[in-house]
């Protein structure tokens, strides 16, 4: 069965390593924070100026001066720090953040990503996404395999305006875990009960499929 959004987040959380600083984008990536594996400590960076972001506040304890990059009220953990936007992006551009997880509208087989604009329809802006994808060593895209119209989001080439080129290394969808290497998607894992055929059918880009593709363990 295909994963739900929480399932995608849970699978991505397995990629976390102890001591990492991690930036989570808006949407499914935010959920990753709920599934940190036991015995591991990571610090979440929010690009509006926090290291050590904690959970949402209890009702009545919201602080309008304390929000995350999604403009949601949040809290901070012990040992947190605040800083300005230039310092925040120094952390990101300077590769001090080990992992970036973000959503996408399209990903191509050479690792291009599009997630900020649909010409003529929707222009919300790139926010910090272009800085994040241009500099992060390790980028995981969390998204659904197809768009609402049923078209594959895993493409030979992106059709929408790009956010970054050749930067995505891994994609986790409700169907599969894919690596991007040598200009192709590589199918690493499939969601429990999802067939390789279904993933092939829903992936427009070129994809390398081994004889045996294990199921995700989540």
């Amino acid at each position, binding site marked *: 069965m295909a994963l739900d959004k929480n399932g995608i987040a849970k699978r991505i959380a397995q990629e976390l390593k102890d001591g990492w600083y991690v930036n989570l984008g808006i949407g499914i990536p935010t959920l990753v924070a709920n599934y940190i594996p036991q015995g591991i400590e990571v610090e979440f960076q929010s690009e509006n100026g926090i290291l050590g972001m904690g959970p949402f506040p209890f009702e009545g304890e919201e602080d309008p001066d304390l929000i995350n990059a999604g403009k949601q009220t949040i809290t901070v953990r012990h040992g947190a720090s605040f800083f300005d936007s230039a310092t925040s992006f120094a952390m990101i551009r300077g590769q001090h953040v080990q992992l970036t997880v973000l959503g996408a509208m399209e990903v191509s087989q050479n690792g291009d990503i599009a997630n900020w604009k649909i010409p003529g329809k929707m222009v919300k802006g790139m926010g910090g996404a272009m800085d994040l994808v241009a500099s992060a060593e390790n980028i995981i895209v969390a998204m659904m395999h197809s768009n609402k119209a049923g078209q594959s989001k895993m493409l030979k080439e992106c059709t929408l305006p*790009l956010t970054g080129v050749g930067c995505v290394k891994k994609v986790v969808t409700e169907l599969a875990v894919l690596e991007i290497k040598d200009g192709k998607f590589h199918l690493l894992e499939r969601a429990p009960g999802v067939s390789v055929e279904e993933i092939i059918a829903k992936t427009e880009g070129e994809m390398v499929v081994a004889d045996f593709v294990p199921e995700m363990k989540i």
Partner: protein
Amino acid sequence: MNKVVKDPQTALEGIENGMTLMVGGFGLCGIPENSIAQLVKMKVKNLVCISNNAGVDDFGLGLLLQGKQVRKMISSYVGENDEFERQMLSGELEVDLIPQGSLAERCRAGGAGIPAFFTPAGYGTEIAEGKEVRIFNGKPHILESALTADYAIVKAWKGDTEGNLIYKATARNFNPMMAMAGKITIAEVEELVEAGTLDPNQIHTPGIFVQRIFQGQKFEKRIEQRTVRTKQ
């Protein structure tokens, strides 16, 4: 030298039609709301506003958009504002969208006397069009230029009569860089104290960057996305 002014009306004197303004804040967090209200009253038009976001329809910079006071917005993210999207798609409003880190650094550079810098952000995308590309350490970078403003309007938590500023939590965001990049920088603060009261170790923006300072009458501090958890 007296930097303290009594109210936003005095603080914003000199702002005229067509000027470029930097306005601090991230979403509705850390915005100079008293000054924005004053800009609405002044009815200045054709403004170029440099601000990470454009507020929401009825608060923050959204108020200036409603009054069609803004000719051009320079921002990184402008969702959450229907009027903005309408004006942009219809072509009434000129919009320059900039990656958030580049926006922050362009303001910082403007205040720091660095005319331009190379960054990898945006390489290979439409925002790189027409910009010089150079390879450093095997990786392509694009040339981004510094930003300055006729007036920078920032919001701080505490300030003193010398113009030294301390921000609170994530209300800091773009305020420190914008404070550096204004030809004239106006700071509105929640609490204005005598020089010598604030600990010099804790100052975020040194007073040299601030020309006018006033204590805001009231701060609504609207929350954009109120998210909470329930006690178990």
